[in-house]
């Protein structure tokens, strides 16, 4: 039908270039420039940001939506839900919705989507959100699905926000590059240069303003910024802080990433609490943050951003006090703590903008309080060896740079894995803390939030298990044609439906 016509015009727009090259783009078209080429377009991998930014909520949608500002879960393809028992949740599916290929959205389709996600023959990234939990979905009736899990899943509605519901006609045992969902846009074309999404007229919800969206990708932030500036693109979801120079077009947003230096608490001198405290106090957090990550960066005291359930806004950050820090080190030294041992900062090359600079700055500042600091920047796969348990044998005392993204709205995706003695990334082993975490994981609602808050406070104030750095800020550049603002989820999805024209 009009597909080929649309494709034609999309190509024409591309050939002609945008902005000053070949006249203005069609009024309802947008061009989005991404930092990297989406490796593929498989919906069950869409928690990866390269994929998710294109397809999430545009091509495929989810049962629930997690509100970025409050962490509240709201209905989407599911209209309501309830917990039947500890391990069973029941979702009511929206009626009258069709997939883009005409298949009806019903309980069977949702069951199929969940089973496809869990299919061991696929290597779905998004499965990681569920850990090793077994899900057994079942269609109770045409529009009702029951999801059973082998262990209690108090945050099932939140998790449902990560499951992309796909058409039952999509291959079950094979990964695809042409996703079909219920979203407002269909995939018009995809090649090595660009991806084009086309508005789907049969969409069940309100018709969005954008008709076609063309995705391009450029690795260099400066070039993405330049493309929006010259009008070749309308929007880029991420530019470096130094490129965000125009307050008219450039907006900062908390991108849900938090950074820290994980302290290897089992190895001297890092087993000494005074040393760990000194580490936290020796850094000029404000100076470094502004210099490297921009004036909008937030000092972090815990590894989840405000708005996430479990975030504790009462924790007071350590103040920059090099003298006090030095004194603590002296004191530890007097007690026989081997503070002269070389401590290695483990970084990962190209981790996030200015990650190496931050290591270099911290190295300098920590050296000033009398510690012996070295830096080792590793290749991604090498760095991973330090991330997970078991940690490499024979390592010295290390401070491990880590960036953590929790955009699900619940601290349950952060605390156990980072601070429980069994946690995959955890260097903390504290029985009291373990207890709090276990209780929190089984709890729901406010109680769950309070328990996580307790846990964060304990880690930060009593145990001093890490050197939390910042809640990171992303910058977007939005061309003046568009009316669009970024939010916490911009890192993982760009809803075309939210884009309006000026």
């Amino acid at each position, binding site marked *: 039908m009009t597909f080929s016509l649309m494709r034609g015009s999309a190509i024409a727009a591309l050939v002609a270039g945008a902005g000053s090259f070949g006249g203005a783009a069609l009024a309802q078209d947008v061009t989005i420039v991404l930092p990297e080429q989406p490796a593929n377009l498989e919906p069950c991998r869409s928690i990866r940001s390269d994929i998710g930014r294109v397809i999430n909520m545009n091509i495929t949608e989810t049962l629930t939506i997690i509100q970025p500002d409050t962490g509240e879960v709201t209905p989407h393809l599911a209209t309501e839900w309830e917990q039947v028992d500890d391990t069973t949740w029941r979702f009511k599916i929206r009626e009258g919705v069709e997939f883009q290929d005409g298949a009806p959205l019903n309980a069977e389709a949702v069951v199929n989507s969940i089973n496809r996600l869990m299919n061991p023959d696929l*290597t779905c990234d998004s499965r*990681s959100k569920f850990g090793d939990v077994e899900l057994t979905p079942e269609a109770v009736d045409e529009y009702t699905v029951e999801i059973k899990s082998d262990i209690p899943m108090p945050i099932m509605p939140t998790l449902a926000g990560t499951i992309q519901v796909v058409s039952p006609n999509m291959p079950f045992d094979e990964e695809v590059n042409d996703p079909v969902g219920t979203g407002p846009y269909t995939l018009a074309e995809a090649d*090595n*240069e660009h991806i084009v999404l086309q508005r789907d007229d049969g969409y069940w919800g309100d018709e969005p303003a954008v008709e076609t969206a063309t995705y391009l990708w450029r690795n260099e932030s400066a070039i993405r910024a330049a493309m929006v500036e010259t009008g070749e693109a309308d929007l880029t979801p991420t530019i470096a802080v130094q490129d965000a120079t125009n307050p008219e077009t450039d907006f900062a947003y908390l991108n849900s990433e938090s950074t820290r230096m994980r302290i290897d608490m089992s190895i001297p001198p890092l087993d000494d609490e005074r040393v760990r405290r000194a580490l936290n106090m020796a850094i000029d957090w404000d100076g470094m943050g502004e210099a490297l990550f921009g004036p909008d960066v937030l000092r972090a005291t815990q590894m989840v951003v405000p708005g996430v359930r479990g975030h504790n806004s009462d924790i007071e950050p350590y103040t920059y006090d090099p003298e006090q820090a030095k004194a603590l080190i002296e004191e530890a030294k007097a007690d026989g703590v081997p503070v002269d041992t070389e401590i290695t900062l483990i970084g990962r090359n190209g981790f996030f903008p200015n990650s190496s600079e931050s290591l270099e700055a911290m190295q300098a500042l920590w050296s000033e309080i009398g510690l012996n600091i070295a830096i080792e920047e590793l290749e*991604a*796969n090498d760095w991973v060896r330090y991330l997970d348990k078991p940690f490499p044998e024979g390592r010295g005392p290390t401070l491990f740079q880590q960036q953590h993204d929790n955009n699900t709205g619940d601290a349950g995706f952060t605390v156990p894995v980072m601070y429980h003695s069994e946690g*995959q990334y955890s260097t903390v082993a504290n029985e009291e803390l373990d207890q709090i975490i276990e209780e929190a994981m089984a709890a729901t609602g406010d109680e769950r939030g309070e328990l996580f808050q307790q846990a964060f406070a304990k880690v930060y104030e009593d145990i001093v298990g890490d050197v939390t750095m910042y809640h990171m800020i992303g910058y977007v550049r939005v061309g003046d044609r568009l009316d669009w603002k970024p939010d916490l989820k911009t890192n993982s999805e760009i809803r075309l439906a939210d884009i309006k024209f000026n």
Partner: protein
Amino acid sequence: MFTYVFRRSTQSMAAVVALLVLVFFLARLTGDPAYLYLPLDSTEAQRQAFNELNGFDDPIYIQFFRYLGDLAQLDFGTALSRNRPAMEVTLEAFPETLKLATIAMALALFAAAVVGSLAAARPGGVFDRLATTISLAGASAPDFWVAIVAILVFAVSLGLLPTSGTGSALHWIMPIGVLMLRPFGLLTQVVRGSMMGVLSQPYIKTARAKGVARRRIIFVHALRNALLPVITVAGDLMASLVNGAVVVETIFGWPGIGKLMIDAIVRRDFALIQSTVLVTAVAIFVMNIVIDLIYAAVDPRIRHQQT
């Protein structure tokens, strides 16, 4: 002629196979791909499942024999990161690089031949000084630096050219310009040096004694002789362009094989690494043979060689 090409091809085939073996084993020294394919918070069981599914848990020699078996059936494997056959992805990207590299090389060669020859005509003259300094400066600057500055100047400040991407003819200008800087600089020097040598050859004296005008001596008599060493260097540079346009491709968003290869390497997409290496290696070997043939075409002595 045929036997020659055949002999060279067989030797090159052996080298390609050796290269593939090397790449196969060395690439697998770079750690567990599951960590890079799956999210960092995936569980150990999920990683294991991934490795089992893709055969990465088998002993490496079994993986290798499986790879050889597949190769024999012209199955180059699936590019895991792309969900597509590796060779298909590679062959989509390769022509983009080849086009870019060929045009850049052709222009560089042409410009170098003209500038180098004119510089050699009056060594030490103003034109020579200028040409040498400029061409060498071009060859001496980091290419990504030049590329970004060029974008900032020509696309952003002046608005003359599109920043990046493909499409209209204008999109080609900056990538080609940046890509040809280094070959142009080096080749100009080679042409100049070679030309100076040729211009002091006795047959140039003959041409002058015959009454041939200076310009014709340079561009007709001398240039063809001077081109021989240039072709060798140009061949090596072309190989490095085919293999190494990655910086330009990355910056200008050019969907070429260099960018594909670095992505594959960073993601440990083994099948894709192997197919990109295979394609570029074959291209380089074919080019080497072509260069030998060009040599023979330019120099009859090689055509009739008997030592």
